[in-house]
Each structure stands twice: as C-alpha cells, then as structure tokens.
C-alpha cells in the first residue's frame, strides 16, 4: 500500500470536516450566559435572606437541583448535544455528569454501579481541583511564614 503513518496523519488532518465554530460559539455564549444569568438571579435572591458566602453555596445547590431535574427526562442530553461547552462548563454540567452516571449505572447495582461509578466523569474534576488547592495551600502557608 502506498501509505505510511506520517503521510496518513497529514491526509486525515486535511480530510477533517470543520466544526461550525461561529455557530458553536454563539450557542455556547448564549446558553452558557443564560445559565450564569439564572445563577445570578438565584444568588441575588438568596442574598436577600443570607450572607454572601451562604448565598453562593445555595446558588450552586439550586443550580445542581435544577440540572438534576432537567437531566431526569433526558433534556439536558438533548440540550448538550446542541450546545456543547455552554452546558458543559457551568456547574450544571458537572451536576449532569454525576446525575447521568447515577441513573446509567443503576443497572450494575447500588454499590458496585451507582456507588462506584457516580463520579466516573466528575471524579477527575474533584481530584485535580483538590490537589491543586492543596498545592496552593502549601504555597500560601509558606508565604505567611516569610
């Protein structure tokens, strides 16, 4: 065959269909922005009742609850298939990854399925976020000693 991996890599790169970047970005901007706007409305409402820190936590929890509600009938998937990063990057996307895994792996049991695999997508986010914060904690602690 008149083909080698290097030439083929070039050939496949050239044959890649282009993503409609502008359209993708508009979807991401408007849907992502809307979710954040909803978050801001919730935050301002919670701030009427509680201090800023607690209101922030309650905002996250409310959005996670709404995401679970929308995931349940399969709507978050339908939206995400269109929107891409707009539904992926907000905390509702994080919640969707946890909720969808829980629903999906129920078939393999509550402990070995749901329990073991609920964070199969969100796990790396929690793991590396916590690790990074630990590293920052050490740096911050040393900075305080200097």
């Amino acid at each position, binding site marked *: *065959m*008149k*083909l*080698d*991996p290097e030439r*083929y*890599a070039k*050939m*496949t790169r050239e*044959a*890649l*269909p*282009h*993503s409609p970047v502008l359209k*993708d970005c508009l979807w991401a901007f408007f849907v992502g922005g809307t979710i954040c706007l909803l978050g801001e409305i919730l935050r301002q409402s919670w701030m009427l009742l509680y201090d800023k820190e607690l209101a922030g936590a309650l905002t996250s929890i409310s959005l996670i609850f709404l995401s679970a509600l929308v*995931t349940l009938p*399969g709507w*978050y*998937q*339908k*939206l*995400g*298939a*269109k*929107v*891409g*990063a707009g*539904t*992926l990057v907000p905390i509702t*996307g994080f919640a*969707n*990854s946890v*909720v*969808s*895994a829980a*629903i*999906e*792996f129920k*078939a393999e049991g509550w402990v070995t399925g749901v329990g073991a695999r609920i964070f*199969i*997508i969100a796990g790396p986010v929690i793991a590396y976020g916590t690790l990074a914060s630990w590293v920052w904690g050490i740096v911050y602690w040393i900075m305080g000693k200097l």
Partner: protein
Amino acid sequence: MTVRNGDTVIFHTPPIIHTWASAGGKKESEGPLADAFDLLFPDTSCGTSKWEQAESILQQKCVEHCLKKASLDPDQIDLAFGGDLQAQCTASNYTMRAVGAPYAGLYGACSTMAEGLCLAACFAAAGYGKQVLAFTSSHFCAAERQFRTPLDYGGKRPPTAQWTATAAGACLLSPGGKGVAVHSVTFGRVQDYDVHDINNMGAAMMPAAVSTLMHHFDDTGTVPADYDAVFTGDLGQVGSGLLHRQMLAEGYDLANHRDCGCLLYDVGNQHVQAGGSGAGCSAAVLCTHVLPRLADGRWKRVLFLSTGALMSQTTYLQGESIPGIAHAVELRAQEG
C-alpha cells in the same frame, strides 16, 4: 476445486445465502432503508430495563425471524457464527443460549457480519454443515454506555464521530439451493496506520479496507468496474473520502463504491455526524439493501466489505493506536 489464491478463497461450488433477516431500532425506522427491514423496534428498550439485554432481544428476534422465513427449527442449524460489540460478545452468547444450536462466537467489531459470512461460507462449501447461520448486531445504548458516556450525559459529538446503529442482521447459508451465491471470500489483515482519534473510526479503518480490496482484486484478477457495486462497512463520510483518495493513488477508481454507514441513515438530516457504524450497520444494509437486489437480479455481482476497529477501551486509554480490519465477500446473483 475450491482454490486458495493469496488471501482469497474462491469456491468451486459457491455456497448460497438462501434466507436473511434484519431488525432495526428507532433511528433506523426513520432512515431511508426503513421499509426494507423485517422487524422494527421503535422502542429500543425492547421491553427490558437493561440495554445489553435489549440488544440480545433485538438479535434473538432477528435470528428467530430468519429461521421462521426459512421454515427451520433451531435444531437444524449445524453451526452459528455470531458476535457483537459488547464485552465478551454477551449479546450473542445470550441469543445462542435461547436458540440452542452449536455456536462459535466471533469478535470482529464492526467487521463481524463479513467475518461471519466468510467463515460460514467456507464451512458450508466444505460440506461441514447443511444450514449455517451468520449473525451480528449492535445497539446504540449498549455501545454508548460501554465505550463512551452515560446516555443522559449532555455532550456534543465531533463531526467525525459515527452513530452506532441499533440493528441486527442474520443470514442462513447452505452448500446449494436458491438465493445469493458467495463466490469468493477474502480474509483481511490487521492494518494500523497510527490513528489515535477514537472519534474518527472511519479514518482508523480505511487502510484495512484498502488492503483487503487490493488483495481481493489481485487474488481474483478483477477491478472495481467488474462489480455492480463495492460496499464498505462503515467508514462514514470521512473514511469514505479517504478511501477514494487512497484507492485512486493505488490505481483503482472506486466510482461504484457505497458505504453502509452513509446508506443506513440520511446523514445530512438525522444528526448522525459522519454516518452510521456498529456491527449491526453493515449487517442491516446487507440484509435490507444488498441481498434483495442480488436476489431479484437487479444486480449481478457485488463486493461486500465490513470494516472493524479492533481497539478496546483499555488499550485506547493506554495510548495504543487503533488497528483496523476488513473482510470481503463476493456475492453474485444466481443465473437463470
């Protein structure tokens, strides 16, 4: 005498595919081949709560329908060759638990239909069995939860991705009789051109298709124009484009090429990105589109390839490239 020429077995007395059946899911029932399916399951759960089980039921109904069309009992099957995409081929294992005939499980990923046909044809031609079954299936949901993400996870597919068909196909072969003749079969060699993108399977499998096509043309002394059509399994739009370019570079004009992944769905309108894939894709196109046209004489001679990507989730995550394979079956209408 049956001869072995290169990688190709050319049958002296071609075995006959005398009966076939197909089953499809919801998206398939909305596609261009919908009317040609024997069985359609708009509810792809097939009445169960587990997707793996749903695939097995889809497959089992397809096999049973094929036996019914041939007026055969499961006991009359001398050997069944079958496989699917689930780990350890469980859909087929559970189908054959219910059917009960002698069974050899295959794993050829999306090439399983052609692989099974090649083996069944050899087996029947050699006289080792009077009724030999080849079947396969895939199920979008079973594949998605095994290879990608939970079904309710909201993710966007890249435009090179392919849609796993929810479909099954089954063929019954005999040493003689009426139907579509298998004149020769070419077993493929594994080809790996260092493609790592799991969302571009068409590109990963394309070199395997080229390799098998060239072996087949060499071994049989034919050119693409000798066939009414040359089918590839599921390269999709991206892989098909690459195939045309590469075959042209090798000196073959594939003007009469069609890809099962682009036939099963209306690629522009059914949101399947680059086209269909999955073992059931080429099986369904074979049983709904190819065999009927050979049976009624609209076509005389067809070359049918199924292509498979042979990685696993584990080797992929370990950074291995994706090896591909393709097997070819030369089908002819019976004369007279």
